[in-house]
């Protein structure tokens, strides 16, 4: 009797465990990027027929999909301030001259950081606000399904922020991305490594990879392995970590034993925190490169502070770029006056997008989506600084779009973290390098810090 009760209890507990698993799977399903919505729903008459453009307009409505509430609200506001700053500049200078000085008017839609909300807000921008084109939406997970709506309505979309590779690999005709794909990040990062090895006369023979074994790192790893293989650098450790891992010490010990010249990590913020803390605890002395956004998150620096020093990290834009692009200083100042904080990567790209939009409108001289699409496809901004050349406030060599709508000249900068995790100095590419900063490569040993 008692035994059978005990068995029942074991049974219940294992049922419970199953329940827990089921719920957790359901939860993770909710947070992962939503699958693109089925495009079966008939969008109505407006879908197939674009709104006719009036001959002369005093105002051109541009939609901007931004996460203004939720976890990304702070960043969303910065991006909005970026659009506003640049739109004000364009309007003050006389608006779109080819359209009789029509003014830019940005209509903001709040995605809340959620794919489904992003989709419905895109519908609203197109059918209710009747915007000429849309820019957005920072997150790949929102941009992916939202651009599908715009494609259906044949409204041009200029990507802001989102780096997911396959965004521009779906054969869309109304989608244009001036910023780089995530895969280019690996290539640029390797360029930085080559450059630093040469500059500092350091020969890297071995590399260790540690990454979360999920979507983004796993899609980047084959490229990294190939790039290192091409250089004859031996991979001494290739360590994937399950996302629910609670402790990385054992993995860090493996790194320590492998004694790599270079450690490359691809983590989201929580595991990046554990890794950096563990490297210090176990005194693993090596050059550290990071990929992804963890080393751009303020909470990462708050959590690890000085331990983040000397890590090499990619950034879309850094304030140090102004040392080279001096002409952009007034724009950055104006942004600061508006937003109250220094210009940063994603508002900077919002600014760039406004100047691209200005360029496109000047050439299209119309708000007809077809003409806008043609003008976008023919974009060629190569000279920085003047007029629409101010779009090159970003570290991009030029702006033009290939057949997929991707700008092949998109790029970023590699920075080294210093001063207790409070400052980032640009170390690559050389043209943006901080002239007063001497890159520390390799970093000092933990025992000497």
């Amino acid at each position: 009797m008692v035994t059978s009760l005990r068995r029942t209890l074991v049974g219940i507990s294992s049922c419970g465990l199953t329940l827990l698993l089921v719920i957790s799977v359901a939860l993770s399903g909710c947070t992962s990027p939503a699958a693109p919505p089925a495009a079966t729903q008939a969008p109505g008459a407006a879908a197939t027929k674009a709104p006719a453009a009036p001959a002369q307009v005093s105002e051109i409505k541009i939609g901007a999909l931004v996460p203004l509430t939720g976890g990304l609200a702070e960043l969303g506001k910065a991006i909005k301030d970026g659009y506003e700053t640049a739109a004000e500049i364009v309007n003050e200078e006389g608006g779109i001259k080819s359209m009789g000085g029509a003014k830019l008017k940005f209509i903001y839609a709040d995605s809340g950081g959620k794919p489904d909300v992003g989709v419905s807000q895109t519908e609203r921008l197109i059918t209710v606000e009747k915007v000429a084109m849309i820019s957005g939406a920072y997150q790949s997970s929102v941009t992916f399904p939202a651009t599908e709506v715009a494609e259906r309505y044949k409204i041009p979309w200029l990507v802001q922020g989102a780096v997911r590779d396959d965004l521009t690999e779906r054969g869309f005709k109304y989608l244009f991305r001036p910023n780089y794909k995530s895969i280019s990040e690996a290539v640029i990062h390797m360029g930085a490594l080559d450059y630093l090895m040469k500059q500092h006369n350091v020969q890297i023979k071995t590399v260790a990879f540690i990454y979360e074994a999920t979507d983004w790192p796993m899609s980047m790893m084959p490229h990294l392995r190939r790039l290192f293989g091409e250089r004859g650098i031996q991979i001494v450790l290739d360590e994937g970590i399950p996302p629910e891992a609670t402790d990385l010490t054992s993995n860090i010990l493996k790194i320590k034993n492998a004694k790599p010249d270079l450690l490359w990590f691809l983590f989201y913020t929580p595991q990046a925190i554990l890794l950096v803390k563990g490297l210090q605890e176990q005194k693993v002395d090596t050059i550290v490169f990071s990929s992804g956004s963890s080393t751009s998150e303020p909470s990462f620096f708050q959590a690890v502070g000085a331990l983040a020093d000397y890590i090499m990290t990619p950034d879309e834009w850094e304030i140090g770029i102004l040392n080279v692009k001096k002409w952009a200083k007034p724009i950055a100042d104006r942004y600061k006056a508006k937003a109250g904080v220094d210009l940063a990567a994603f508002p900077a790209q919002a600014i760039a997008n406004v100047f691209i939009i200005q360029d496109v409108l000047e050439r299209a001289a119309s708000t007809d989506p077809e003409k806008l699409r043609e003008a976008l496809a023919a974009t060629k901004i190569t000279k920085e600084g003047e007029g629409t050349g101010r779009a090159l406030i970003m570290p991009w060599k030029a702006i033009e779009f290939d057949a997929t709508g991707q700008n092949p000249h998109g790029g970023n900068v590699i920075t080294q973290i210093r001063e207790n995790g409070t400052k980032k100095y640009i170390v690559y590419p050389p043209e943006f390098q901080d002239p007063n900063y001497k890159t520390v490569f390799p970093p000092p040993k933990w025992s000497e810090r």
Partner: protein
Amino acid sequence: MEGFLTAFLNGLFMGAVYASFALAISLVFGVMKIINFFHCSLITAGMYGIFFMWSWFRLEPYVGVLIVVPILFLGGYVLHNTFVLTLFKRERAYVVEPISVLMLTAGMWLVLDNLWLLIFGSQFRAVKSFITGSTTDVAGITISNARFVAFVGGLALTYALWWFLNNTRVGKGMRATAQNREAAALCGVNIYRMYNLAFGLGAAVTAVGAALLMPFYYVDPYVGFSYDMKSFIIVVLGGMGSIPGTLVGGLIVGVVEAVTTQFVSGTYAGIAVFLVFVACLLFRPQGLLGRETV
């Protein structure tokens, strides 16, 4: 070899932390025969408590715990008395196994976790304690001081709970309730009070675990979940309701995790713990230190 030994020691240290979180599950299961799914929310609450004691009042985690423990005890007591016990009493009139209580705790887990998200935001926070990052080198092995303290603390916590259950009047009441509700009630034990106390005590023990973990960890609204997952494995492994078994289970999980990682990739090491768990369920379903008869 040194790497292996360091990994083994670190596994032991982490195992003690896992055990301190699993104690509450074991206690609540032992006494009430229900599984508390919102245990992970309590772990997170404990960690936030420790963090804010440090962030607001600059109290070291090992000091802040003195304030967080009573708060969590009260929180656990009240939550249980208000929600769980109400349903438990109603349910008991109809069936032997309170299934809907199980569902209730799962629901409360979702409510509480989202409440933490609402209150604290999604960013990651960490304590910079005096002990954070400090290490000791012994014969070529680098030991993190905070982890060592967590190990000693975990052992002490387990012993303290075991002593409490065996030597105090309330503890004996809890054990009596665990062994036979009806008989305990007949002997004058207020079993519902025991349930409340056991639940509060579980939450308090969790707060101690949180204080041991925080100096070398971070907190975000979902941090408790992965620890909760391990807690269930540990409790079944060690023997449900057995306090020393929970410690043994925790240490085994910690060591298996750490040592297998030295031989295979991290993703495979994640499987190893579950293999041990499945093997245990198949061959010794009552757990390593669980008794066949209660």
